[in-house]
């Protein structure tokens, strides 16, 4: 092998590259690991200096995340019967009793409903549109595609002003339907662009053969093209889901009591004397973990979506 060859890296250069990349990856992970650890600390441990790496793990953060509590006098506390659950016991250490569930569960469910609803709708509509753009001659197709993409250049706050007014008129503000429609509109540009790339790659001959066999165009679409595009549809769906799951700007402006999702809610979890950091960290962990697991499990499908199909020839 020539000493100048780059196409086959030497063992030593591989080692050096490996060490550098792993170092970067570990540094990248520190904040995430820290937040997962903080969720298991007591409020005092969470803000102690120097930062505690070794500590007594407790589930207080999670208990505080899911409940609302009220302080009662020590006499009243003593008069109560013994706590029957572990979470009651944790709360009573602080002279408090559980008053009821917190809003976190509701907010989380809202995130799930709005996330999956908008993902389904954008992938459904996006697949139809992408198929049409890929297979039929549509007048001004390039302009339409550019128009679809350019809708992503608007700052969300700029879009939010008229949407806010429009939703107020239509009674859609703070509803699940309103948020699903909005996220679908934002996601559909990405969906059409990605899916068009995937469908472009399916040979036309398959459908043409089906058409000759007496299938209608519609049947050819759902019997031949859809199964072939399944992987592409799945990875597009993951992207739409992650966007809707993570979105904050529209959620904080357009939702409040009824349809609020988790991202605007998590930073507002208040404890005694300011933010309850272990509870915030617990909320963040529960909210971020599904996405992290998703990313690791489906990494091969995600890669292409992230690069907007840039790697495609």
């Amino acid at each position, binding site marked *: 092998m020539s000493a*100048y060859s*780059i*196409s086959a*890296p030497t063992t030593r*250069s*591989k080692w050096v590259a490996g060490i550098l*990349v792993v170092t970067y*990856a570990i540094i990248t992970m*520190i*904040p*995430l690991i820290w937040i997962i650890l903080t969720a298991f600390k007591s409020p005092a441990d969470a*803000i102690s200096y120097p*930062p505690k790496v070794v500590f007594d793990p407790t589930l207080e953060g999670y208990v505080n995340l899911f409940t609302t509590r009220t302080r009662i006098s020590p006499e009243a506390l003593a008069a109560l019967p013994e706590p029957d659950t572990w979470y009651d016991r944790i709360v009573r250490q602080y002279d408090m009793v559980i008053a009821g569930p917190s809003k976190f569960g509701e907010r989380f469910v809202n995130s799930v409903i709005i996330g999956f609803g908008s993902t389904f709708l954008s992938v459904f509509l*996006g697949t139809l*549109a992408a198929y*049409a753009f890929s297979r*039929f001659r549509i007048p001004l197709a390039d302009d339409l595609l550019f*128009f679809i993409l350019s*809708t992503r*250049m*608007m*700052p*969300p*706050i*700029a*879009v*939010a*002003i*008229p*949407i806010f*007014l*429009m939703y107020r008129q239509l009674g859609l503000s703070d509803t699940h339907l309103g948020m699903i*429609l909005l996220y*679908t*509109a934002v996601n559909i540009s990405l969906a*059409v662009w990605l899916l068009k790339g995937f469908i472009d790659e399916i040979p036309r001959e398959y459908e043409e053969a089906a058409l000759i066999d007496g299938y*209608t165009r*519609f049947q050819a679409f759902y*019997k031949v093209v859809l199964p072939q595009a399944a992987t592409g549809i799945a990875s597009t769906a993951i992207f739409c889901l992650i966007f809707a*799951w*993570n*979105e*904050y*700007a529209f959620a*904080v*402006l357009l939702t409040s009591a009824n349809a609020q999702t988790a991202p*605007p809610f998590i*930073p507002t979890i208040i404890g005694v004397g300011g933010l309850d950091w272990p509870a*915030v*960290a617990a909320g*963040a962990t529960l909210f*971020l973990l599904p996405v*992290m697991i998703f*990313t*690791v499990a489906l990494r091969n499908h995600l890669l292409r979506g992230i*690069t*907007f199909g*840039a*790697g495609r*020839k």
Partner: protein
Amino acid sequence: MSDTPIHRGADRAARATPARVARKVRGLSDRAIAWIFVAPTIFLLLAVNIFPLIWTIRLSFTNYRANRLNREPEWVGLRNYERILTDSDTWASMQATAHFLIWTIALQVLIGFALAWLINRQFKGSAFWTTIIVLPMMLSPAVVGNFWSFLYQPQIRLFNYVIAFLSGQDPSSFDILGSVNLAPWAIVIVDTWMWTPFVMLICLAGLRSIPDYLYEAAAVDRASPIRQFFTITVPMVLPFLMLAVLFRGIENFKMFDLVVQLTGGGPGNITTLTSIDLKREAFEKWRTGYASAYAIILFVTVFGLASIYVKALNKVRER
């Protein structure tokens, strides 16, 4: 007909379709199907993007306030635009945005490219570590901003501790979120942490698209590795890199959630990016007309810059 689950499913779907609808669908020409397929998307975009845009343009010429429903808005012509462009706050937020944009893009391009170049050596486990590096960009920016504000807290939290450990300074001697000099860098650091992997992935796609024979030919010609790097690697990756910069540029021009949770625009106005400024005008001061004009100015700026940039990108690609 074959008997795969897909076929069975399709047959069931066909049988479940009402006869009238089925007849109609079957009889449709390709052109009609094309329009039926595209129409819902276009309709949705018209309703949720274009109609509001036109509404915004209209509002931008009035002094409408969304919190006062009973007052008739007055037509004020171009006065909103005039005020915005002569307001020093607007220019301050533009400057904050420019600082944020330039530094995040510079750092992300440098680190992202370097990482991609290293990962492309394909050492053992590179796929796994790539996934780990990609994690931050999949997370919710608002939640990320929120927990970084925790890491940044002075005296007691992690970031100060690490910096103090590395530099030997007193950890309570600086407060990165509270200082006018440091806060703009606080948001640059978090955005770089979060989005470097994006640039890295696109660069990686670029590096993998370079055919091996180019390097082999260069090696036959006895071109040094450094020469190969600058005459093959860099020019071949450049279009990809420019694409990454375009996406990051557009995204960071719109930046709102991460920074609002991290600094809230402070201290003072030093990290008030244009989106945060716009949010205050529209939803805190309720100057809807003024904010609409602001929104239009931002949109035109982004659109204009992006169009110029795309032209440049196409020139590079044609080369």
